[in-house]
């Protein structure tokens, strides 16, 4: 063991260790420390303190050297992360560059990473839709993956718990397939989005256009003031970090909250190599950490460990945690660790124009947009593919740029501001079916800068995904046509999995230790003091943006873990 002596063991011992400070790790830290648990939070990246470490947050466009664009050299050196919609001059410092932590693409997979305190919670798209039982019951109803060990009623109170603290704007839509939550006032839809909502309501019984629920403080409550967070100021440059704390991130919310309890020790620059399994005690006693800068190894000890390293890195850490008892990775008796990885299918878009309602435009900025909850195969199987898709929906007036001419005529054209038709955009968020053949594994030879094996990613689309894309094109086109939209075009980006940044699974929950890794409390079936509550735990993917569910599962699992500790079971 590295650097071990009795004194060091005492000094390096906590009640709990949380690996990762992103959206779920932050929640683990908050919930544990609030319950009086002395918690070590390990973050592999650098520290990013709320506000002070948001260097670009108040820059105007003209104050950025390249007005937001990234230098050619950066793009050339980073072919993967450059594909991400938010990787621009104002936020590039919050993304992991391609060569900083390479991985092996057995099949094309764009893995987007954020290694810093707060992780990708600084960068996320802040969409927070609840799951319903139509999602939790998917696998057992449609006979794929394994049955979720929980149902909506198990997680509903924890959704509420998380929503109240995080601050979620939304409308109570009364939809069984997308349950309502604890909402702050909703943002407005645009005039054309409202029109489309009415058109869809007229023509389809089971299809709905709503305003997407988002993690923005549309009206500050005392709990947000207590966090030092103010109302969202509609800047919509959230990816830079928000000086108002207007949207939820670990940095603005859970991490400082945990810090305030006095029970959290936060160690940035700490790469977790593995969890330490004690063969005699038959449990994990701690984690082995490599200082990301000095490469020095240190062991830390705790009664329980929460693994929230982000879906793929959680798989990597567990696969790399080998012992006599678990030669194939921690908790991996059934050989399923790393398997049944899934994601969201974001390949498809439909665009259109609308030439009505031209007396209206928008004023200010909305941090969210429209949303169409899944309507396919919800109550009965309607198609020759399984499951379905949700859809983002936005409609804004197009700005007509007249750049004709040279000289004074050009100048006049440019400054004569004109609005064209409403431009409608819709993007698909398709559920994918987890399969054993979609997996991550440790590379047998290649290692990273810290001597840890590279992760090999082998994930692909299948026929179900292709059929779903076609159906999405057909259905959205039909809905657009019915609303009188014109110039309807469909687009398949053919993007690789990963770019959706919704990778999930590999350490799935389930009822049976033979076919799953985690139980209904997110405990490893075969090593009960280890909890996994990030994207790795997901048995299936649903169509909803998944972070809210990770947060709720985390709070729920911490509640259980602390009760078990109090009972002496952990």
């Amino acid at each position, binding site marked *: 063991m590295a650097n071990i002596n009795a004194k060091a063991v005492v000094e390096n011992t906590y009640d709990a260790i949380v690996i990762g400070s992103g959206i779920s790790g932050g929640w683990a830290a908050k919930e544990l420390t609030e319950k009086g648990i002395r918690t070590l939070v390990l973050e592999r990246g650098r520290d990013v303190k709320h506000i002070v470490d948001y260097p670009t947050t108040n820059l105007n466009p003209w104050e950025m050297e*390249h*007005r937001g*664009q990234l230098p050619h050299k950066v793009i050339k050196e980073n072919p993967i992360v450059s594909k991400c919609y938010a990787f621009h001059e104002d936020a590039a410092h919050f993304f992991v560059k391609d060569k900083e932590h390479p991985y092996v693409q057995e099949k094309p997979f764009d893995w987007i990473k954020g290694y810093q305190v707060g992780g990708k919670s600084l960068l996320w798209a802040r969409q927070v839709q609840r799951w319903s039982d139509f999602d939790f019951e998917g696998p057992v109803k449609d006979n794929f993956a394994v049955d979720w060990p929980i149902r909506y009623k198990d997680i509903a109170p924890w959704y509420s718990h998380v929503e109240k603290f995080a601050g979620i704007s939304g409308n109570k839509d009364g939809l069984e397939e997308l349950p309502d939550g604890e909402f702050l006032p909703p943002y407005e839809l645009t005039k054309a989005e409202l029109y489309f909502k009415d058109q869809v309501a007229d023509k389809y019984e089971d299809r709905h256009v709503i305003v997407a629920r988002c993690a923005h403080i549309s009206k500050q409550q005392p709990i947000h003031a207590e966090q030092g967070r103010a109302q969202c100021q509609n*800047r919509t440059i959230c990816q830079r970090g928000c000086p108002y704390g207007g949207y939820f991130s670990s940095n603005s919310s859970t991490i400082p909250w945990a810090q305030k309890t006095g029970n959290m020790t936060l160690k940035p620059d700490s790469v977790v190599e593995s969890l330490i399994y004690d063969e005699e005690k038959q449990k994990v006693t701690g984690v082995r950490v490599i200082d990301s800068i000095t490469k020095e190894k240190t062991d830390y000890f705790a009664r329980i460990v929460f693994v929230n390293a982000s879906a793929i890195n959680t798989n990597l850490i567990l696969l790399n945690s080998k012992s006599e008892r678990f030669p194939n990775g921690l908790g991996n008796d059934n050989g399923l660790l790393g398997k049944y990885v899934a994601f969201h299918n974001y390949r498809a878009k439909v665009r259109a124009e609308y030439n009505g309602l031209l007396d*209206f435009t928008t004023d200010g900025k909305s941090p969210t947009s429209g949303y169409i909850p899944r309507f396919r195969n919800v109550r009965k199987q309607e198609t020759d593919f399984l499951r379905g898709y949700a859809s983002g929906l936005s409609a804004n007036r197009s700005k007509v740029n007249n*750049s004709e001419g040279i000289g004074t005529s050009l*100048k006049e054209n440019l400054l*004569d*501001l*004109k609005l064209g038709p409403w431009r409608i955009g819709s993007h698909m968020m398709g559920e994918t079916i987890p399969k054993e053949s979609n997996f991550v594994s440790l590379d047998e030879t290649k290692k990273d800068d810290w001597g840890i094996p590279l992760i090999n990613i082998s994930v692909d689309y299948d026929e179900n995904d292709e059929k779903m894309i076609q159906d999405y094109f057909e259905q959205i086109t039909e809905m657009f046509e019915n609303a009188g939209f014109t110039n309807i075009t469909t687009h398949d980006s053919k993007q690789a999995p990963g770019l959706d940044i919704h990778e999930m699974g590999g350490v799935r929950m389930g009822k049976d230790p033979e076919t799953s890794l985690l139980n209904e409390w997110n405990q490893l079936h075969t090593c009960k003091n280890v909890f996994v509550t990030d994207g790795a735990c997901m048995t299936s993917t649903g169509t909803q943006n998944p972070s809210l569910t990770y947060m709720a599962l985390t709070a729920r699992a911490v509640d259980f873990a602390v009760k078990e500790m109090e009972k002496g079971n952990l």
Partner: protein
Amino acid sequence: MNRRNLIKTLGISAVGLATVPFWIDSWTAEDLPEDDGFLTGNQQLQLSELVNIIIPKTNTPGAKELGVGKFISVMVRDCYNEEVKAEFLSGFGELNAFSEDFYGNSLIKLTEAERNDVLCTLESYETPPEKKINFVAFVKGLTIAGFMSSQYVMENHLNYELVPARFHGSFPVTQSIYTNV
């Protein structure tokens, strides 16, 4: 730098002196910038004049006053590949050569109407397959980008706000700074 040297630097012959634009007289030594590591001082001046032709000063500042030349220099230096950079650098010479052929003078000595004609003509040319850019269209595009994202234009013409603090989804066009096409 005195007027004579400046004229020499800009490649204007003595014959053309009578038609040398007025602005040359108002220039001082400080006006010829240092080599910025990408463009020579001379190239910077040429670029600055080109953006001035594309979006001139009227009763409001033009692209030159708003530093668009510098913006283009930085953008081309950092945000484009070597082929585009090379074509951009050689574009100035080609532009003047075309101008000489077309109107018998370098661009800077033409009347406003002649310059606009040269640039519009060149802009309309299709980029040949072996080339990455149409120089005039490329510079014009960057000039527009730099002009429209300048502080002056964003604050005075586009009603830009860093902190809108509001969103109205159904806002009357009549109350906006836009009009319908």
